Protein backbone atom coordinates (compact mmCIF):
# COMPACT_ATOMS: atom_id res chain seq x y z
CA UNK A 1 0.00 0.00 0.00
CA UNK A 2 1.62 3.23 -1.20
CA UNK A 3 0.17 6.64 -0.34
CA UNK A 4 1.40 9.76 -2.11
CA UNK A 5 1.95 13.04 -0.24
CA UNK A 6 2.18 16.12 -2.45
CA UNK A 7 4.62 18.97 -1.83
CA UNK A 8 3.89 22.40 -3.34
CA UNK A 9 5.99 25.54 -2.85
CA UNK A 10 4.85 26.65 0.61
CA UNK A 11 3.54 23.29 1.83
CA UNK A 12 4.28 22.85 5.55
CA UNK A 13 2.69 19.62 6.71
CA UNK A 14 3.92 17.13 4.14
CA UNK A 15 6.47 15.68 6.59
CA UNK A 16 3.83 15.10 9.27
CA UNK A 17 1.40 13.68 6.70
CA UNK A 18 4.07 11.24 5.48
CA UNK A 19 4.78 10.28 9.08
CA UNK A 20 1.08 9.61 9.67
CA UNK A 21 1.03 7.40 6.57
CA UNK A 22 3.96 5.39 7.97
CA UNK A 23 2.36 5.15 11.43
CA UNK A 24 -0.69 3.68 9.70
CA UNK A 25 1.54 0.99 8.20
CA UNK A 26 1.72 2.20 4.61
CA UNK A 27 4.59 3.46 2.49
CA UNK A 28 4.69 7.25 2.04
CA UNK A 29 5.64 8.40 -1.46
CA UNK A 30 6.71 12.01 -2.01
CA UNK A 31 4.94 13.62 -4.98
CA UNK A 32 6.18 16.89 -6.50
CA UNK A 33 3.80 19.65 -7.62
CA UNK A 34 5.54 20.14 -10.96
CA UNK A 35 5.37 16.49 -12.04
CA UNK A 36 2.64 14.87 -14.13
CA UNK A 37 3.27 11.60 -12.31
CA UNK A 38 1.43 9.97 -9.39
CA UNK A 39 4.07 7.17 -9.35
CA UNK A 40 1.34 4.56 -9.22
CA UNK A 41 0.24 5.37 -5.67
CA UNK A 42 -2.94 3.84 -4.24
CA UNK A 43 -4.13 7.05 -2.56
CA UNK A 44 -3.06 10.69 -2.27
CA UNK A 45 -2.83 13.12 0.64
CA UNK A 46 -2.83 16.85 -0.18
CA UNK A 47 -1.29 18.31 2.98
CA UNK A 48 -1.57 21.68 4.69
CA UNK A 49 0.50 24.82 4.53
CA UNK A 50 0.47 27.97 2.45
CA UNK A 51 0.95 26.80 -1.12
CA UNK A 52 2.06 29.69 -3.34
CA UNK A 53 1.81 31.95 -0.29
CA UNK A 54 -2.00 31.85 -0.51
CA UNK A 55 -1.65 34.27 -3.45
CA UNK A 56 -4.92 35.03 -5.28
CA UNK A 57 -6.95 32.75 -2.97
CA UNK A 58 -5.83 29.95 -0.67
CA UNK A 59 -5.35 26.87 -2.85
CA UNK A 60 -6.24 28.58 -6.14
CA UNK A 61 -2.85 28.42 -7.84
CA UNK A 62 -1.94 25.00 -6.45
CA UNK A 63 -5.19 23.60 -7.85
CA UNK A 64 -3.78 24.23 -11.34
CA UNK A 65 -0.38 22.60 -10.70
CA UNK A 66 0.59 19.72 -13.03
CA UNK A 67 0.29 17.10 -10.26
CA UNK A 68 -3.28 18.25 -9.53
CA UNK A 69 -4.33 17.47 -13.12
CA UNK A 70 -3.25 13.88 -12.34
CA UNK A 71 -5.08 13.91 -9.00
CA UNK A 72 -8.29 15.16 -10.66
CA UNK A 73 -8.02 12.43 -13.31
CA UNK A 74 -7.28 9.82 -10.64
CA UNK A 75 -10.19 10.92 -8.47
CA UNK A 76 -12.52 10.49 -11.45
CA UNK A 77 -11.44 6.83 -11.48
CA UNK A 78 -11.96 6.41 -7.73
CA UNK A 79 -8.49 7.21 -6.37
CA UNK A 80 -8.89 8.07 -2.65
CA UNK A 81 -7.78 11.66 -2.02
CA UNK A 82 -7.53 13.40 1.36
CA UNK A 83 -7.13 17.18 1.61
CA UNK A 84 -6.06 18.62 4.96
CA UNK A 85 -6.34 22.37 5.67
CA UNK A 86 -4.66 24.03 2.66
CA UNK A 87 -5.15 20.67 0.94
CA UNK A 88 -8.92 20.97 1.55
CA UNK A 89 -8.81 24.47 0.06
CA UNK A 90 -6.94 23.10 -2.97
CA UNK A 91 -9.50 20.30 -3.49
CA UNK A 92 -12.36 22.84 -3.36
CA UNK A 93 -10.56 25.09 -5.86
CA UNK A 94 -10.01 22.04 -8.08
CA UNK A 95 -13.78 21.31 -7.93
CA UNK A 96 -13.17 17.90 -6.38
CA UNK A 97 -15.16 19.03 -3.34
CA UNK A 98 -18.09 21.46 -3.04
CA UNK A 99 -18.03 24.88 -1.39
CA UNK A 100 -15.19 27.22 -0.50
CA UNK A 101 -13.10 28.21 2.54
CA UNK A 102 -13.15 31.88 3.52
CA UNK A 103 -11.61 34.14 6.16
CA UNK A 104 -12.42 33.13 9.72
CA UNK A 105 -15.36 35.01 11.19
CA UNK A 106 -13.26 36.99 13.67
CA UNK A 107 -10.26 37.26 11.31
CA UNK A 108 -8.17 35.41 13.88
CA UNK A 109 -5.68 32.70 13.08
CA UNK A 110 -7.14 29.97 15.29
CA UNK A 111 -4.73 27.37 16.67
CA UNK A 112 -6.13 24.96 19.26
CA UNK A 113 -7.14 21.41 19.97
CA UNK A 114 -10.59 20.90 18.49
CA UNK A 115 -13.30 18.31 19.07
CA UNK A 116 -14.92 16.92 15.91
CA UNK A 117 -17.78 14.54 15.33
CA UNK A 118 -17.40 11.98 12.56
CA UNK A 119 -20.66 12.49 10.69
CA UNK A 120 -20.04 10.07 7.85
CA UNK A 121 -18.12 6.91 8.68
CA UNK A 122 -18.66 5.37 5.24
CA UNK A 123 -15.98 7.26 3.29
CA UNK A 124 -12.62 5.91 2.16
CA UNK A 125 -10.94 7.97 4.89
CA UNK A 126 -13.39 7.54 7.81
CA UNK A 127 -14.50 3.89 7.70
CA UNK A 128 -12.38 3.08 10.76
CA UNK A 129 -14.46 5.38 12.94
CA UNK A 130 -17.96 4.86 14.24
CA UNK A 131 -20.65 7.23 12.99
CA UNK A 132 -21.04 9.94 15.61
CA UNK A 133 -17.66 9.18 17.20
CA UNK A 134 -15.93 12.25 18.62
CA UNK A 135 -12.22 12.89 18.16
CA UNK A 136 -9.85 15.68 19.21
CA UNK A 137 -7.26 16.95 16.71
CA UNK A 138 -5.50 20.31 16.25
CA UNK A 139 -7.02 23.02 14.08
CA UNK A 140 -4.79 25.86 12.81
CA UNK A 141 -5.91 28.24 10.08
CA UNK A 142 -7.08 31.74 9.24
CA UNK A 143 -9.29 30.76 6.30
CA UNK A 144 -11.32 27.80 7.45
CA UNK A 145 -14.87 29.14 7.34
CA UNK A 146 -16.73 26.76 5.05
CA UNK A 147 -19.37 28.36 2.84
CA UNK A 148 -21.48 27.06 -0.02
CA UNK A 149 -24.49 28.19 -2.03
CA UNK A 150 -27.80 27.31 -0.27
CA UNK A 151 -28.66 24.63 -2.86
CA UNK A 152 -25.16 23.10 -2.57
CA UNK A 153 -25.44 23.13 1.21
CA UNK A 154 -28.86 21.44 1.08
CA UNK A 155 -27.40 18.82 -1.26
CA UNK A 156 -24.37 17.94 0.87
CA UNK A 157 -26.40 17.91 4.08
CA UNK A 158 -29.18 15.87 2.43
CA UNK A 159 -26.74 13.32 1.01
CA UNK A 160 -24.79 12.92 4.24
CA UNK A 161 -21.69 14.43 2.69
CA UNK A 162 -20.63 16.32 5.80
CA UNK A 163 -17.73 14.13 6.94
CA UNK A 164 -16.77 16.04 10.11
CA UNK A 165 -18.52 18.66 12.20
CA UNK A 166 -17.07 20.89 14.93
CA UNK A 167 -18.40 20.17 18.41
CA UNK A 168 -17.85 22.11 21.61
CA UNK A 169 -17.45 25.40 19.78
CA UNK A 170 -17.13 26.46 16.16
CA UNK A 171 -13.61 27.94 15.70
CA UNK A 172 -14.27 30.07 12.62
CA UNK A 173 -17.98 30.62 11.91
CA UNK A 174 -18.08 27.72 9.47
CA UNK A 175 -21.59 27.15 8.05
CA UNK A 176 -23.50 24.44 9.97
CA UNK A 177 -20.30 23.79 11.99
CA UNK A 178 -18.89 21.97 8.96
CA UNK A 179 -15.25 20.93 9.43
CA UNK A 180 -14.96 18.53 6.51
CA UNK A 181 -16.92 17.22 3.53
CA UNK A 182 -16.74 14.30 1.14
CA UNK A 183 -17.35 13.73 -2.55
CA UNK A 184 -20.56 12.00 -3.63
CA UNK A 185 -18.74 8.65 -3.94
CA UNK A 186 -16.97 9.00 -0.56
CA UNK A 187 -13.48 8.66 -2.08
CA UNK A 188 -12.42 12.30 -1.75
CA UNK A 189 -12.48 13.89 1.72
CA UNK A 190 -11.33 17.32 2.84
CA UNK A 191 -11.17 18.82 6.32
CA UNK A 192 -9.66 21.93 7.88
CA UNK A 193 -8.38 20.34 11.15
CA UNK A 194 -5.16 18.32 11.15
CA UNK A 195 -5.49 14.58 11.86
CA UNK A 196 -1.83 14.10 10.88
CA UNK A 197 -0.82 16.08 13.98
CA UNK A 198 -2.79 13.74 16.26
CA UNK A 199 -1.08 10.40 15.78
CA UNK A 200 1.39 10.36 18.68
CA UNK A 201 0.92 11.63 22.23
CA UNK A 202 4.48 12.99 22.18
CA UNK A 203 3.41 15.78 19.85
CA UNK A 204 -0.38 15.72 19.63
CA UNK A 205 -3.42 15.97 21.88
CA UNK A 206 -4.54 12.44 21.00
CA UNK A 207 -3.87 9.62 18.57
CA UNK A 208 -7.39 9.91 17.18
CA UNK A 209 -6.25 11.38 13.89
CA UNK A 210 -4.58 8.16 12.84
CA UNK A 211 -7.94 6.64 11.94
CA UNK A 212 -8.10 8.54 8.65
CA UNK A 213 -4.82 7.03 7.52
CA UNK A 214 -5.70 3.50 8.62
CA UNK A 215 -9.21 3.74 7.15
CA UNK A 216 -7.89 4.22 3.63
CA UNK A 217 -5.90 0.96 3.84
CA UNK A 218 -9.23 -0.87 3.58
CA UNK A 219 -10.42 1.30 0.70
CA UNK A 220 -7.97 0.27 -2.01
Amino acid at each position, binding site marked *: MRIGVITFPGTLDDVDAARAVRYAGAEAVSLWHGDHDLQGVDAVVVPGGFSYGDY*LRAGAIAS*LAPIMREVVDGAAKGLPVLGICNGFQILCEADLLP*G*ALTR*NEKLHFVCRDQALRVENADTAWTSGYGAGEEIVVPVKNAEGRFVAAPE*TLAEIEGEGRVAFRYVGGNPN*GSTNDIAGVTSANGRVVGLMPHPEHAIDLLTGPSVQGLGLFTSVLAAV
Partner: protein
Amino acid sequence: MARVVVDVMPKPEILDVQGQAVSRALTRIGVSGIEVRQGKHFELEVDDSVDDETLHRIAGDLLANPVIEDWKVTRL
Protein backbone atom coordinates in the same frame (compact mmCIF):
# COMPACT_ATOMS: atom_id res chain seq x y z
CA MET B 1 -2.49 45.91 -26.73
CA ALA B 2 -5.57 46.74 -24.73
CA ARG B 3 -5.97 47.44 -21.07
CA VAL B 4 -8.61 45.37 -19.29
CA VAL B 5 -9.75 45.62 -15.70
CA VAL B 6 -11.29 42.74 -13.78
CA ASP B 7 -12.98 43.62 -10.50
CA VAL B 8 -13.76 40.76 -8.14
CA MET B 9 -16.07 41.19 -5.15
CA PRO B 10 -17.42 38.80 -2.52
CA LYS B 11 -21.03 37.88 -3.35
CA PRO B 12 -23.56 39.99 -1.42
CA GLU B 13 -24.66 37.01 0.65
CA ILE B 14 -21.08 36.13 1.68
CA LEU B 15 -20.03 37.60 5.01
CA ASP B 16 -17.13 39.94 4.19
CA VAL B 17 -15.20 39.95 7.44
CA GLN B 18 -12.31 41.98 6.01
CA GLY B 19 -14.68 44.73 4.85
CA GLN B 20 -16.31 44.70 8.28
CA ALA B 21 -12.94 45.12 9.98
CA VAL B 22 -12.12 48.08 7.72
CA SER B 23 -15.54 49.60 8.49
CA ARG B 24 -14.85 49.31 12.21
CA ALA B 25 -11.40 50.87 11.81
CA LEU B 26 -12.99 53.86 10.08
CA THR B 27 -14.86 54.72 13.24
CA ARG B 28 -11.48 54.91 15.00
CA ILE B 29 -10.43 57.78 12.75
CA GLY B 30 -13.70 59.49 13.52
CA VAL B 31 -15.69 58.56 10.40
CA SER B 32 -19.05 56.88 10.81
CA GLY B 33 -21.81 55.95 8.40
CA ILE B 34 -19.58 53.99 5.97
CA GLU B 35 -19.91 50.29 5.25
CA VAL B 36 -17.01 48.75 3.34
CA ARG B 37 -16.90 45.63 1.21
CA GLN B 38 -13.45 44.56 0.12
CA GLY B 39 -12.60 42.94 -3.19
CA LYS B 40 -9.78 42.63 -5.72
CA HIS B 41 -8.86 44.74 -8.74
CA PHE B 42 -6.82 43.19 -11.57
CA GLU B 43 -5.24 45.22 -14.38
CA LEU B 44 -4.48 43.17 -17.50
CA GLU B 45 -2.40 44.18 -20.51
CA VAL B 46 -4.08 42.13 -23.20
CA ASP B 47 -2.93 41.27 -26.69
CA ASP B 48 -5.45 42.27 -29.36
CA SER B 49 -5.93 38.63 -30.29
CA VAL B 50 -7.54 37.84 -26.91
CA ASP B 51 -11.33 37.96 -27.24
CA ASP B 52 -13.98 38.79 -24.65
CA GLU B 53 -14.97 35.17 -24.25
CA THR B 54 -11.43 34.33 -23.16
CA LEU B 55 -11.37 37.25 -20.74
CA HIS B 56 -14.59 36.08 -19.09
CA ARG B 57 -13.25 32.54 -18.94
CA ILE B 58 -10.05 33.53 -17.11
CA ALA B 59 -12.08 35.75 -14.77
CA GLY B 60 -14.48 32.94 -13.87
CA ASP B 61 -11.93 30.11 -13.86
CA LEU B 62 -9.03 31.72 -12.05
CA LEU B 63 -9.28 35.37 -10.99
CA ALA B 64 -12.58 34.78 -9.16
CA ASN B 65 -14.04 31.78 -7.36
CA PRO B 66 -17.70 31.68 -8.54
CA VAL B 67 -18.70 29.93 -5.29
CA ILE B 68 -18.01 33.07 -3.27
CA GLU B 69 -17.25 35.91 -5.68
CA ASP B 70 -18.80 37.96 -8.50
CA TRP B 71 -16.66 39.61 -11.17
CA LYS B 72 -16.87 42.27 -13.83
CA VAL B 73 -14.64 42.54 -16.92
CA THR B 74 -14.13 46.05 -18.33
CA ARG B 75 -12.13 46.98 -21.43
CA LEU B 76 -10.66 50.44 -20.90
